[in-house]
């Protein structure tokens, strides 16, 4: 796959640049954060689409268990889908890879690698990231990590099939694909670590004059906290990954207790290990990780809302503090994924309490965003539609986290579709919608052209309807007690019978959602060449990337002239000012 279907816009000003760099240095091994950001964006979008395609196959199987998949079914190979009928092994591979790809190869690279890379330096007035080479290395760890994951579908036994959570001992005895998964993960972890160091240094060190912490756009705060989460939470998973790799390759027993009997045979291993150790290390990462998925999204939504309400964000300070607190707390709630692993009262009380506490900063942030709408002059632009839809969707996802966070109610709901519904509401109509908002919003920055509004609406409304059609019934199915990761969607179970018909409904919605992406894809590629040309600040925004840099930004160094900052990020509709926006870099009374 080419990393860049679209060459980034020509730098406007090449005067200071005597020797033009060769193509590969400019677009492939580029050190320019803007090019790297676009490389991340296209790779991540590809993976999102791929992850979605895997899910389409699964949803076919869930709607019509054991029915041959039309057309594509034959291409899946006899080992996976003989006669086009998906085997349970293959279903498990698809599930594990859908989760892994969406989280680690789709959303994180898009939210952090792409948006963070492109926008953060521009918003803080920096010429580039602090370490451009490291930035390139980070992408070039991500890319092979992704390739390894893709390639694992073609090794004997197929891709990893033990869930994205890869709980041992199932994962230690699994087919070779699991080893590939682990190696791929180590690449992705390395990439994230490099990236997060770079982001933190950039934000601390490269802010232009006058840009104090409380004048940073909220998006930058979100990226900063996100980077800390990646920096400190990923290493334990790396440790766990190394242990699991050794368990598989060198036959150690870190996660294998003594006396396992696999298919009637006593497992030859030293024994004495602990399967729960993996879960602790995994969730120590994976809980902070879910905030990695949501914080950049909240950042984007905050930018878009401030811009399209034409007024300052309400409670900006409390949002910033809430974000920091959220980041901190996210390190001490992880075992709420493990309530049913045999926990006594003390520890379960601890984790329930921290889980309830962590919901408060989310409520604070969301409330602030809601109240920001009061007194606004709301422009229903395409990015704004997605940003607005994000709010109630994240609300549903977040609220359904509460019964999961209380251990007694989690007894019935754990590992059912209720959980699937909970987190998809936060990541799909939540984060993905925020990503769409970001794409529509910053597209003119990157290309100097706007995306088409009609196609935007044609993308938004069906997506909004279908995505709820997929995930809302999951709460009903989950309350009925249908487990997740079932190849036949629960067809065998008596308790699933009353809700089985929802499977079809959800699948049809999923197919609908896929079709709803067509206007988006057309719009994206068409607008690169044919979109309406706009000036460098088409949204009349206040933050530096719009107010101080040309669109697209200058090839090397971003700004024609290094800006200075005089006021907070969202000075819209300032009384007494003739325009309804007062850019951060406009000299004048400090505001």
């Amino acid at each position: 796959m080419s990393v860049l279907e679209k060459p980034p816009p020509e730098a406007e000003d090449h005067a200071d640049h005597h020797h033009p760099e060769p193509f590969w240095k400019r677009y492939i091994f580029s050190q320019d954060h803007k090019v790297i950001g676009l490389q991340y964006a296209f790779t991540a979008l590809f993976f999102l689409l791929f992850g979605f395609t895997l899910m389409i196959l699964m949803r076919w199987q869930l709607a019509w268990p054991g029915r041959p998949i039309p057309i594509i079914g034959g291409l899946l190979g006899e080992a996976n889908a003989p006669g086009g009928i998906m085997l349970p092994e293959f279903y498990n591979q698809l599930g594990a890879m859908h989760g892994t790809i969406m989280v680690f190869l789709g959303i994180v690279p898009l939210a952090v690698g792409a948006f963070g890379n492109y926008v953060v330096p521009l918003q803080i007035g920096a010429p580039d990231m602090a370490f451009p080479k490291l930035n390139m290395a980070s992408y070039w760890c991500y890319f092979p990590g992704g390739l390894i994951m893709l390639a694992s579908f073609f090794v004997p036994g197929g891709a990893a099939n033990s869930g994205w959570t890869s709980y041992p001992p199932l994962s230690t005895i699994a087919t070779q694909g699991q080893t590939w998964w682990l190696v791929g993960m180590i690449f992705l972890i390395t990439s994230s670590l490099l990236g997060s160091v770079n982001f933190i240094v950039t934000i601390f060190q490269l802010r232009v004059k006058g840009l104090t912490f409380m004048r940073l756009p909220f998006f930058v705060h979100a990226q900063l906290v996100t980077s800390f989460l990646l920096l400190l939470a990923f290493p334990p998973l790396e440790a766990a990954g190394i242990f699991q790799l050794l368990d598989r390759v060198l036959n150690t027993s870190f996660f294998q207790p003594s006396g396992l009997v696999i298919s009637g045979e006593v497992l030859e291993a030293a024994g004495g290990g602990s399967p729960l150790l993996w879960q602790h290390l995994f969730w120590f990462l994976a809980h902070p990780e879910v905030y990695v998925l949501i914080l950049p999204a909240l950042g984007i939504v905050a930018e878009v809302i401030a811009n399209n309400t034409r007024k300052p964000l309400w409670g900006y300070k409390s949002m910033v503090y809430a974000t920091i607190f959220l980041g901190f707390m996210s390190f001490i709630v992880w075992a709420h994924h493990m309530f049913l692993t045999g926990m006594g009262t003390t520890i379960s009380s601890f984790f329930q309490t921290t889980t309830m506490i962590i919901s408060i900063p989310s409520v604070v942030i969301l409330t602030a965003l809601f109240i920001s709408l009061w007194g606004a002059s709301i422009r229903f632009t395409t990015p704004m539609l997605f940003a607005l839809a994000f709010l109630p969707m994240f609300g549903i996802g977040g609220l359904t986290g509460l019964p999961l966070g209380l251990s007694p109610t989690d007894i019935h709901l754990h590992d059912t579709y209720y959980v699937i519904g909970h987190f998809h509401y936060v990541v799909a109509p939540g984060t993905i919608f925020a990503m769409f908002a970001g794409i529509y919003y910053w597209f003119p920055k990157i290309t100097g052209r706007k995306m088409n509004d009609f196609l935007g609406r044609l993308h938004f409304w069906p997506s909004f309807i279908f995505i709820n059609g997929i995930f809302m019934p999951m709460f009903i199915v989950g309350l009925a007690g249908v487990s997740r990761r079932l190849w036949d969607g629960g067809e065998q179970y008596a308790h699933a019978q009353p809700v089985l018909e929802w499977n079809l409904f959800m699948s049809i919605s999923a197919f609908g959602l896929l079709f709803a992406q067509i206007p988006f894809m057309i719009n994206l590629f068409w607008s690169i060449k044919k979109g309406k040309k706009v000036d460098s600040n088409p949204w009349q925004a206040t933050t530096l990337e719009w107010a101080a840099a040309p669109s697209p930004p200058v090839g090397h160094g971003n700004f024609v002239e290094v800006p200075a900052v005089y006021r907070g990020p969202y000075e819209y509709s300032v009384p007494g000012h003739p325009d309804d926006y007062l850019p951060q870099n406009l000299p004048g009374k400090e505001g």
Partner: protein
Amino acid sequence: MGGHTAEEIRGEIRRYWIIGLALFLLTVITVAVSYLDVSAGMAVFVALLIACIKGGLVAAVFMHLISERQAIYALLILTVVFFAVLMIVPIGTRASPIPMG
């Protein structure tokens, strides 16, 4: 950080050698203690105490943390807190299982 004048730097160099010597001696002590017949708990305590002292010296002097900036302190405190959580909680989880009764 580190000083800038030649005088200051020479002073630092003296300090480096003293610390190096101290680390050397502490290592000898650790090994010596391990050959004594003390209770297991005591052995762990002494070994970790000495290791912490040594680690502290390395961090404070060689990595010149004593004269470092606030930002770095904040970062390290944060890391130490999470590190502690990582150490304590998994063990705590096992210490609180569902009682067999």
